[in-house]
């Protein structure tokens, strides 16, 4: 009797493997410092959900409810997006709005991966529908909340793998991007110094989120959950009259939601959902999405540099894949490696935040056409 009530008698091999995955994520977060804010809750959630007899993720269990309340409804990723909006400074983008084109170009990673995910169906063992493929492709947007939001709408079964892939690759940006950036640019191109950005007035910063929202309302209502919350957060930050709300959105609230979002994502790391050949496909496709997005961003920046009267360093195109602010830091680092006096950080922030808008728009398009 007593033996039957211990977990030892009920462990299945799948659960043990998934617990090992959970410990692996904790290791990456604590020792390697990979996106610890998310990988710790996700890893721990994975441990909890795979405990036999505890039933964390079954009806009545804590993680089950957290998932139902926060992710199934899409509320958590949207609240996070509001906080991200309250932390984002669009100054660099408003000073040089053409950088939006780089944010657009890098989204090719998403759509190319969509194609790739469908093509993977030719391999026996893979059966991705168009919805699955869209949810996988958004990993290329390099934007955690967007990926989770879209996956919860289109392919809830794949959510665990998609979220883990999205956050892992965001952590791996400093490893994935530089070789691609160096391969596509010459030393002279990497040395290009860019003109200093003009200062941007508070008024412009206040009007910007309102303009983005208006455009979304007019042309892409399906993206308004994401873009709307993002712009709301940004307006709170820039208007300067609700500092209390803005501080809450970018600190306490986003932290609270992150804890629950991570646990809920972790609860999706159960053996039957995660230990499939599809997960391998998702991990592979995610890396490809990132690589293609980086490449098209850099190529677009080269193209723009040919037609622009102000010099454009093609490296900043790589920041178009959002992953704020990591991608911009990587650009800065690669730029400094070839020219120690060339600080590209501010210039890369423009395409970087443009990438956030770009991937939210891409998510809206996928929701409208596939969802």
């Amino acid at each position, binding site marked *: 009797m007593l033996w039957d009530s211990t977990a030892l008698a009920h462990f299945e091999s799948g659960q043990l493997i998934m617990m090992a995955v959970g410990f692996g994520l904790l290791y990456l977060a604590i020792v390697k410092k990979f996106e610890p804010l998310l990988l710790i809750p996700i890893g721990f959630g994975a441990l909890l959900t795979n405990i036999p007899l505890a039933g964390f993720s079954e009806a009545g269990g804590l993680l089950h409810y957290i998932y139902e309340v926060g992710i199934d409804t899409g509320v958590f990723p949207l609240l996070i997006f509001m906080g991200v909006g309250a932390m984002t400074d669009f100054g660099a983008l408003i000073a040089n709005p053409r950088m*939006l*084109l780089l944010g657009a170009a890098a989204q090719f990673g998403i*759509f190319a991966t969509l*194609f790739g*995910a469908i093509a993977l169906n*030719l391999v026996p063992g893979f059966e991705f529908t168009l919805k699955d493929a869209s949810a996988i492709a958004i990993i290329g947007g390099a934007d955690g909340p967007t990926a989770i939001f879209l996956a919860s709408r289109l392919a809830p079964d794949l959510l665990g793998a998609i979220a883990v892939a999205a956050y892992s690759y965001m952590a791996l940006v400093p490893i994935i991007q530089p070789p691609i950036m160096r391969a596509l640019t010459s030393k002279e191109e990497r040395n290009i110094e860019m003109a200093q950005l003009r200062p941007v007035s508070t008024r412009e910063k206040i009007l910007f989120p309102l303009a983005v929202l208006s455009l979304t309302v007019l042309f892409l209502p399906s993206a308004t959950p994401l873009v709307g919350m993002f712009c709301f957060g940004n307006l709170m930050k820039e208007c300067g009259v609700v500092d209390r709300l803005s501080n809450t959105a970018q600190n306490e609230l986003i932290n609270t939601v992150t804890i629950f979002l991570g646990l809920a994502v972790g609860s999706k790391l159960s053996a039957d959902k995660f230990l499939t050949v599809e997960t391998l496909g998702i991990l592979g496709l995610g890396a490809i999405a990132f690589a293609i997005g980086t490449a098209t961003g850099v190529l677009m920046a080269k193209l723009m540099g040919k037609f622009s009267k102000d010099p454009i360093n093609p490296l900043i195109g790589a920041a178009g894949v959002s992953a704020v602010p990591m991608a911009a830091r990587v650009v800065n680092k690669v730029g400094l490696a070839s020219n120690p006096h060339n600080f590209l950080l501010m210039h890369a922030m423009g395409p970087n935040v443009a990438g956030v808008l*770009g991937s939210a728009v891409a998510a809206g*398009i996928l929701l409208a*056409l596939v969802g």
Partner: protein
Amino acid sequence: MEQSAVTSLLLEAGSLMLIGMLFVFAFLGLLIIGVQLITKFCNAFEGDAVQPPTMSRLKAAQPGVDGNIVAAITAAVHTHRQANKK
């Protein structure tokens, strides 16, 4: 999955890729125009600059201090704040 089913899905994914990229570029392209309009608007109607601190209150608070010194310090603080503004 059957070959024919995959082929039709691939066609669909291809058209989605085309439409999606065109739309992303069109949308963000419109936004470029939007930002340029905002900038024009802000340059055309410049709002009140940061309001200069009221001199009367400062003078009233420190009757024994030379007005010129107060003015110089005020100007310095103002410049400093402007320079350090986010």
